[in-house]
C-alpha cells in the first residue's frame, strides 16, 4: 500500500462504519434525517474508496485485478456504488444501508486480511478476457448484493405490519415495488453473470487449456448462476412473489459469497490469484524481499 492508499483505505472504513451506525440509529429511532446522513456518509466513503482504488492503480501501474485484495477492494466499491445509485433513484430505500454498509465493511476487512502487497501484472493475468471477466463479475455481484439488500428491506417491510417497526418503515416503498426492484437487480446481475461465466471460460481456455475444468469456483459460480436462473423462472414462470423470493435472493447471494471466498478458504481451486500471479523474481525461492505494509514514516 502506498501512503495515500493506506490513508484513503482507513478513511473509507471509518466512513462506512459511520454510515452503518447512522443507518442503524435512523432505522431504530425512525429518524429520516439520520438515514439521510447515513447515505451521505456512505457517499463520502465511496468517493474516498474510489480514491483508494485510484491510488492502488497509481501504485501498481495496473487495474486492480491482480490480487484478491485488489478484487475485493474494487468489489466493495461496486457494491456501494450500485446501492447508492439505487438510493439516488429512490431515496426512501435508505434502510437498505443497514445491510449494504456492513457488507462493504466486511469486504474491506477481508481485503485487509488478504495482505495488500505490491503485485505485478503477470503475463498470465494480462489478458483482455480477464478484464472482461472480472468487470462483469463486479457488475453481477454488485447487482446481486443490491438484490439481497432489497430482499432484507422487503422482509423488514413485510414483517413490520402490525408491529412497532411499522411506523419506522412507513417511508419505504410498498412491498410490490421492492419485489420488482429486486427482480430488476437480479436480471441485471444475471446478464453480468452470463457474460462473466462465458468470458471466464474463454479465458480459462487461454490459461489452462480447457474451457471448463469443474474447478470449485467454476462449479459454485455455475451453481449460483443456475440458482438465479431458477429465481427468475420461479417468478416469471410460476408467479412466485414476496417473502420466499426475498429469502431466495439472500440465499443465492450466500452461494456467490461462497464462490468468491469460501472456495479459497477450503483450498483446491485454481482461481487463487496468488497461484496465477507470476511471482516476483526470486520470490518463490525466498530470495526476493517480502512485500509488506508501509513502514511508519
Amino acid at each position: 500500500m502506498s501512503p495515500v492508499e493506506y490513508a484513503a483505505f482507513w478513511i473509507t472504513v471509518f466512513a462506512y462504519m459511520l454510515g452503518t451506525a447512522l443507518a442503524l440509529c435512523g432505522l431504530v429511532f425512525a429518524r429520516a434525517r439520520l438515514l439521510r446522513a447515513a447515505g451521505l456518509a456512505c457517499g463520502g466513503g465511496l468517493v474516498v474508496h474510489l480514491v483508494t482504488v485510484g491510488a492502488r492503480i497509481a501504485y501498481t501501474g495496473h487495474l486492480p485485478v491482480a490480487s484478491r485484495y485488489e478484487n475485493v477492494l474494487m468489489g466493495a466499491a461496486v457494491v456501494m456504488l450500485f446501492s447508492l445509485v439505487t438510493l439516488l433513484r429512490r431515496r426512501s430505500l435508505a434502510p437498505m444501508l443497514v445491510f449494504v454498509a456492513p457488507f462493504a465493511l466486511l469486504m474491506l476487512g477481508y481485503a485487509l486480511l488478504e495482505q495488500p502487497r505490491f503485485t505485478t501484472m503477470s503475463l498470465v493475468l494480462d489478458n483482455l478476457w480477464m478484464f472482461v471477466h472480472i468487470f462483469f463479475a463486479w457488475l453481477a455481484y454488485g447487482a446481486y448484493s443490491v438484490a439481497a439488500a432489497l430482499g432484507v428491506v422487503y422482509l423488514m417491510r413485510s414483517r413490520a405490519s402490525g408491529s412497532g417497526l411499522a411506523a419506522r418503515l412507513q417511508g419505504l416503498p410498498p412491498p410490490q415495488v421492492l419485489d420488482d426492484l429486486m427482480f430488476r437487480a437480479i436480471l441485471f446481475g444475471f446478464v453480468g453473470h452470463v457474460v462473466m461465466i462465458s468470458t471466464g471460460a474463454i479465458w480459462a481456455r487461454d490459461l489452462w487449456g480447457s474451457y471448463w475444468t469443474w474447478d470449485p469456483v467454476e462449479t459454485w459460480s455455475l451453481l449460483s448462476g443456475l440458482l438465479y436462473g431458477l429465481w427468475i423462472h420461479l417468478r416469471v414462470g410460476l408467479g412466485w412473489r414476496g417473502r420466499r423470493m426475498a429469502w431466495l435472493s439472500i440465499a443465492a447471494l450466500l452461494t456467490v459469497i461462497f464462490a468468491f471466498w469460501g472456495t479459497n478458504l477450503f483450498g483446491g481451486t485454481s482461481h487463487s490469484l496468488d497461484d496465477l500471479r507470476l511471482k516476483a523474481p526470486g520470490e518463490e525461492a525466498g530470495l526476493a524481499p517480502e512485500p509488506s505494509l508501509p513502514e511508519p514514516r
Partner: protein
Amino acid sequence: MRASNSAAWLQRPLAWLASGRLTVWLLAILVLLLAAHLFVPQQGEVSARVVERWIEHKGIAGRLARALGLTDVLHAPLFAGTCALLFLNLVCCMIRRLRATLGLFRFPQQAPQPAASWLRCELPATDLDEARIAALLHGAGYRALVASGSVYGLRGRFSIAGHWLFHLGLLALLVVGSWLALTPAPFRGTVGVGEGEAFDLHTARFLSSRGPVGPELPGLRFQIEQLEIQTEGTQVRRFDGRILTPEGDVVHFGVNRPFRRAPYQVLVHGFGRMAGWVITNERGRMIGGAWVKLVPFPLERSEDFSLGAEDSSVHVRLYPDYEREAGEDRSRSHALRNPRFAARVVWRGETVHDGLLAPEQRVTLQPGLAFFFLPEIRAYGLLEVIQERGQRSVFACLAVMILGLLVRYGRLRKEILVQRVGESLRVFGHGETFESLFEEEFGRLGSALARAGARPADRGGAA
C-alpha cells in the same frame, strides 16, 4: 381418426416437456447435484480409498449417495439425464411458444378489449381529442392506434423475442459446449516460460491445480510432454527433436494423447525481459517497487519512475550493447542471455548512481535505511498456440444470449387503452413483468393526460 388419437396421446407428454414447471424442477435438481459435487468427495478428484472411507463413514447416506451417482456426479446418469431433459425442455418450450411469440409481434388493427387484470383510472370531463391523446402516447414511446373512439398505445412488442433469443443462445451454447468438451482440441493460449525453465504444461501452475484437464475419459485426456525453451538464439526444443526457429515462425510439435498424436502449432513471439526496481529497508523488506512489463527484445526503451518524492527518481534503461561498446566481441545470443541495465538513480536531488547496475548490485540511498537494486532479471518466451475456433463459437452464443436479455428486458411490453365515456376518459394499462413499476408509470401517464386535458377553469382552480 387414428392420427388424431396419436396426436392426443402425444399432447400430454409434449405439454409436460414444454412446461415452465419442469424447467424449475430441472434447474433445482441441477443446483442440488452441483452442490453434491462440491460437498461429496468425487471419484477422479480424490483417491478411490478416500471415497470408500467417506461412504463407510456416512453409512446409509453414503451408500445412497453412491447409488445415486453422487460420488461421481459429472458422470452420473442422473446428471446426464437432467441435462438431456433440460435440453429437451428448452427445445419444446421454444417450439410450443413460437407461434404465440410471432403473434405478439403484430401490431393490432383494432383496439383490444382490456382484461380484468389491467390497471384503470378515470379522468373527469376533458377536452382531449384522440389525436392529442395519440400524440401524448407517442411522446411516451408508445405506438398509437386511433380506432372507433378509443386510442390504443403499445410499446415493446418485440420484447418477447428476447426470451426466445436468450434460450436459443443457451441451446447453442450447450451444443457448442458439448462439442468442445468432446473434441480433443489442442491447448490454446499463451505461456510465459522463464529462461532456463522447463515446463510440463500439464502439471504447471498454468493448468488446473486439481489434476487432469477435463474428465478422465479415454480420448479426452491430453498431456503435453515437457517443452523446453532455451535462449540459445530463439530455439525451441521438443521432447523428440529440436527445432530452430526465428521469431514469428510457426512450430509444429506433438501432443501426447492416449490414442493419437495431434499436430500442435506454436507461434514463437520472441523473447522479452521483465525487469524492475525495488527499494528495501535495512531488514530487507520491500518498501517500494515497480516492474517494467514484458517487452520484446531488443529492448530499446527506458522507463522513468518516481521514488515517492519530487526530487527522487530512477531512470532504468536496458543496455544491450554494452559489451560491444566496451570493445568486446560478443554474440547477440550472449546479450540476450546476459542483459544489463543502466540506471540513473537520483535520491533527494543527488545522483547516487549512474551507470550499469548488475542484478545483485545495490545502491545505498540512505545508509542503513534504504537501498535500491534490480532483482533477478529473467527472460520469457511467449508462445501462442493458434488454430482454435471454440472461442468464436462461445462468444457468438454469448452474444445471442445477451442480445436476448437486452431485447427482453430492455423494453418491456406495455399497453395503454384510452376510451371516451361521455365527457370523461377511461384509461386502462397493462405492463408485463414489473407490474408495480408500471403502476407508477401508469400513474404518471394518467396525470399527464389529466394535465393536458384540464379545462381552463380547472387550470385556474389548480393554480
